[in-house]
C-alpha cells in the first residue's frame, strides 16, 4: 500500500476515533501516549535512521522540557504557550553540549554517554527539592487552545496528533532541504560529505539538536496533558523504549517511527495486563519481551516492520520549478593556467615511507594520470592532494594557494571536486538530490529556513544547477531514481555530475574506470575529453591502462612511493623502467 494513502487513512482514523460511539476512553488515552512517543521517535528516526547515530537518552530531553515548563507555569505563573520556546531551547542547549562533547568521537560514545547522563538526570530529578524529588511536581495548568483548556480525552488526542502531524511535516521538509541532504549524506560516508564542503561534525550536532527539540515538544505536551510529572517517565528505560520503537517500526522512514510508537505503546499495555498474571507477580516483565524483540528485530529485520507493510520506494524529490535566480557559472580558467601544483610530497606511516618526494602539476585543459603498480603509493598521493590524509612534508598548492593541512571541506571551497574509487553515493536518495549535494557550498540555507520552507528560491537554483550538470553528463533520464538502483558505471557518472555541481576548476578522479564495462568506459572517456575541452583540469588515478593510454595528456608513473618518470603515454609506454615496474624483472 502506498505510504501516502496509509498516512491519510491513519490520520482520518485518529480524527474520527473520538466520534465513534463505544470507543473506550482508555484507547484515546493510549493513543495520546502513542502520539507523544511518536513525536520523540520522529526525532530519533532523523538521528538513527538518517544520520546513522544513536541516543538512548531521548527521555532526558523530554524530561528537561517537562520540568522546565512545569516550573515556569507553576512557580513562574507563565502560560504554557510562553514556556514552550524556553523548554525547547533548554533541551536544544543540553543536546548541543552533549553532542559537542561526544559527536566527534567514534559512533558508540554518544549512545554510551547518553545512557550515563540519562541515569544521572534521573537521580538529579529524584534528589532535588526544588523539583519535588521522586514525588515530582503537580498542579500544572492545561494548554488552552483558543481559550478552551485541553483536559484529556479526545481533546488531548487531537492536540497530540496535531503536533505529531506538525512534527512530521517539519521533519519531512527538513530532510528535503539543503541541511537535510547534508544529514542524509552522512550515510554515504563522512569523507564524501566533507569533500563537498559539509561540516559533518556540525551536521551531526544539528540532527541531534533537532531530535532533542522534538523530544522537548513531546515533554511539554506530556507535562500539560498529564498536569503532574515525576522522574519515572524520563528515566533510562523510557529512553531505551523510544529506541525500541524506532527499531521495531523502522528507523529508515518517519512513518516507520510512528508505526513503531503505536505498536510498542499498545503492546506494552497489553503485556502489562497479561504478564503479571503469567508470572503471578507485579513487575516490569514486558522488559523481557521488549529485549528479546529488539534482538530478534536486529537479527531478522534490521530495517524494521514498516518496510514490510508498505511497498519499498524512494519518494521522488519535489519539483522545485524553474529557478528565478540561477547560480552564476564559475569562471573557467584559461587553458594552461596551473591549477594544482604538488611539490616534494612525502608521507610516512610510522617508519614506513609511503610517498617520497613526489611532484607534478595539473593545468587547465589537460588530463594527467597518476599510474603505477599496486602499492606504489598512488592512492596515498591522491589522499594527500585532497586533504584526506595529512602531509608529512612537501606542499600542495591549489590555484597558487598553499592548502597543506587544510581539511577536505576547505579544499572543496577552492574549486577542487573529486570522485571516489568505491562509489560514495547515498543509495536511498534520488540521483538528483545526490547531485545537488555537490552544490552544497553554493547555497546557504540552514535548518530553520529548510524546515520552515523559506529556502524555495535557493533550492530551485541548486536543483536547476543539478539538473544542468546531470544533463551535461547525459543522465537526465535517471533523475528521480534512487542512486543505488543504477548500474555501477552510471553511479560513477553521477559522482562526476555531483563533482561538477561544485563548479570546480579541477576535477580529481579516483579510479573512474574500475569495474566499468567496455561501452561504459568509452562513454566515460568521451565525457572526460569534453570536460577537458571546456577548460577543466583533470587528475586521475587509474589502473586501467587501455583507458589511460587513450585519454591522458601526460602520465606520472609511481613505483615504491617515488616518481619513476613522467611524460606522454607513448613515451612512457616504451620506457624500460616502466615495463619493468609493471611486469617485474626476471631475477
Amino acid at each position, binding site marked *: 500500500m502506498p505510504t501516502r494513502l496509509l498516512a491519510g487513512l491513519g490520520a482520518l482514523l485518529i480524527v474520527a476515533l473520538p466520534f465513534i460511539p463505544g470507543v473506550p476512553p482508555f484507547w484515546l488515552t493510549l493513543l495520546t501516549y502513542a502520539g507523544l512517543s511518536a513525536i520523540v521517535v520522529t526525532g530519533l528516526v532523523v538521528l538513527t535512521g538518517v544520520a546513522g547515530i544513536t541516543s538512548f537518552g531521548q527521555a532526558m530531553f523530554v524530561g528537561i522540557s517537562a520540568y522546565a515548563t512545569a516550573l515556569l507555569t507553576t512557580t513562574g505563573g507563565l502560560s504554557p504557550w510562553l514556556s514552550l520556546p524556553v523548554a525547547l531551547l533548554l533541551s536544544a542547549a543540553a543536546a548541543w553540549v552533549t553532542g559537542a562533547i561526544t559527536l566527534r568521537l567514534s559512533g558508540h560514545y554518544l549512545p554510551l554517554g547518553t545512557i550515563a547522563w540519562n541515569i544521572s538526570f534521573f537521580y538529579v530529578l529524584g534528589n532535588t527539592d526544588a523539583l519535588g524529588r521522586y514525588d515530582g511536581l503537580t498542579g500544572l495548568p492545561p494548554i488552552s487552545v483558543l481559550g478552551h483548556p485541553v483536559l484529556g480525552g479526545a481533546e488531548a488526542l487531537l492536540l497530540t496528533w496535531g503536533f505529531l502531524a506538525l512534527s512530521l511535516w517539519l521533519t519531512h521538509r527538513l530532510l528535503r532541504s539543503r541541511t537535510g541532504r547534508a544529514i542524509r549524506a552522512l550515510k554515504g560516508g563522512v569523507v564524501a560529505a566533507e569533500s563537498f564542503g559539509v561540516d559533518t561534525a556540525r551536521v551531526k550536532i544539528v540532527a541531534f539538536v533537532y531530535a532533542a527539540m522534538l523530544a522537548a515538544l513531546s515533554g511539554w505536551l506530556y507535562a500539560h496533558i498529564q498536569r503532574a510529572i515525576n522522574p519515572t517517565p524520563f528515566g533510562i528505560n523510557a529512553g531505551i523504549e523510544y529506541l525500541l520503537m524506532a527499531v521495531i517500526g523502522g528507523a529508515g522512514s518517519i512513518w516507520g517511527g510512528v508505526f513503531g510508537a503505536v505498536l510498542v505503546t499498545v503492546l506494552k499495555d497489553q503485556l502489562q495486563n497479561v504478564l503479571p498474571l503469567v508470572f503471578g507477580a507485579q513487575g516490569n516483565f514486558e522488559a523481557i519481551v521488549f529485549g528479546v524483540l529488539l534482538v530478534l528485530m536486529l537479527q531478522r529485520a534490521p530495517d524494521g516492520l514498516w518496510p514490510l507493510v508498505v511497498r519499498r520506494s524512494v519518494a521522488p524529490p519535489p519539483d522545485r520549478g524553474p529557478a528565478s535566480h540561477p547560480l552564476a557559472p564559475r569562471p573557467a580558467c584559461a587553458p594552461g593556467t596551473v591549477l594544482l601544483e604538488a611539490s616534494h610530497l612525502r608521507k610516512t606511516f*610510522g*617508519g*614506513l615511507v609511503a610517498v617520497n618526494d613526489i611532484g607534478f602539476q595539473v593545468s587547465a585543459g589537460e588530463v594527467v594520470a597518476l599510474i603505477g*603498480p*599496486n*602499492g606504489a603509493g598512488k592512492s596515498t598521493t591522491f589522499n594527500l592532494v585532497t586533504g584526506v590524509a595529512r602531509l608529512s612534508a612537501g606542499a600542495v598548492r591549489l590555484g597558487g594557494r598553499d592548502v597543506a593541512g587544510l581539511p577536505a571541506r576547505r579544499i572543496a571551497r577552492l574549486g577542487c571536486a573529486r570522485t571516489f574509487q568505491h562509489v560514495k553515493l547515498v543509495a536511498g536518495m534520488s540521483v538528483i538530490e545526490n547531485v545537488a549535494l555537490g552544490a552544497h557550498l553554493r547555497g546557504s540555507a540552514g535548518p530553520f529556513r529548510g524546515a520552515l520552507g523559506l529556502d524555495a528560491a535557493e533550492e530551485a537554483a541548486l536543483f536547476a544547477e543539478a539538473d544542468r550538470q546531470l544533463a551535461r553528463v547525459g543522465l537526465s533520464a535517471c533523475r528521480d531514481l534512487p542512486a543505488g538502483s543504477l*548500474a*555501477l558505471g552510471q553511479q560513477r557518472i553521477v559522482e562526476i555530475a555531483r563533482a561538477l555541481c561544485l563548479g570546480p576548476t579541477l576535477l580529481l578522479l579516483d*579510479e573512474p574506470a*574500475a*569495474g566499468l564495462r567496455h561501452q561504459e568506459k568509452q562513454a566515460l572517456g568521451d565525457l572526460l575529453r569534453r570536460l577537458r575541452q571546456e577548460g577543466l583540469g583533470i587528475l586521475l588515478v587509474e*589502473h*586501467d*591502462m*587501455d*583507458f*589511460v*593510454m*587513450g585519454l591522458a595528456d601526460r602520465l606520472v608513473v609511481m613505483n*615504491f612511493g617515488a616518481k619513476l618518470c613522467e611524460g606522454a*603515454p*607513448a613515451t612512457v*609506454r*616504451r620506457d624500460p623502467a*616502466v*615495463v619493468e615496474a*609493471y*611486469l*617485474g*624483472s*626476471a*631475477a
Partner: protein
Amino acid sequence: MTRPMLEAESVSVAYGKVEAVRGISLTVEPGRLVTVLGANGAGKTTLLNALMGVLPARGAIRFEGRDLTRLPVEARVAQGLSLIPERRELFSTMTVEDNLKLGAFRFRGTGGGGDIGEMYRLFPRLAERRRQHAGTLSGGERQMLAMARALMGRPRLLMLDEPSLGLAPLIVAEVMRTVARLRDEGVAILLVEQNARAALQIADHGYVLDGGTVVLEGDSRTLQTDARVVETYLGVLAADDAAAPPNRVASGR
C-alpha cells in the same frame, strides 16, 4: 594426469552489483605451483578470497574431492588450505614468536603443526627478531613472517596473494626462491602475482585474468613468450612495439 587437489568450477563473486570474478574455473594438482596473473583490478585477489571463503562466491569449490563451497574460512583452514593475503594480516602488536605459535593454532592440543625452530632456520631474520612486535618489521620481514606463520599450520595447499608487493627486487627474488622450494618439498601452491616475470619463472602452470575472467591459460613457458600477457598489463595503445618486452623476458631466462 593426477587428480586435482583444488578444483574451482565457474566461480563468480559480486560486490553488490559489480561482478569482480565472473565464472572462473581452475585446478591445482598436488605438488604443483600454479600462478594467477593479471593487472590490478583483474580479480586476482577476489578470486583467492573466494577460494579461501573470505568472500561468498557462487560456483563450486572442491578440495581433495570435498565440497568447500559452504564452509567458513576456519573450516577450510582445518582442511589444509592456507592463504597469505595481500595485506599479510599479521598480529602487529604481538611478537614474531607469538605470531608463529598462532600459525599452528589448528593443531592446538595435538602437538601437530610446524616447528618454530625449523621456521627460524628457513628464515634466519625472524630468529633475530623473535621478541619484536610484528608491526615493527620491514616489508620483506613481514612477508617472511607471513609465510612462516602459514607454514606453521602445515598447509597442503598454500595460496599467496602478491608476495612481491612493495618489496625490492632482491627480496622478491628471495621470496620467489622460497616459494619454489616449498613446491619442491611437496606443498601445492597457488601464487597470485602482478610481477608476471618473477612468477612465471618458478611456476608450472599459469592463468591470466582480465576483467574478472580467464583470458589466457597455459604452461608457464608458453605464457612467458605470449605477447598478450604484456597487453593485459600495459594496455593496447602501443601494440606495435609490444613485441619488444616479451623478447626480453625470454632472453632473461
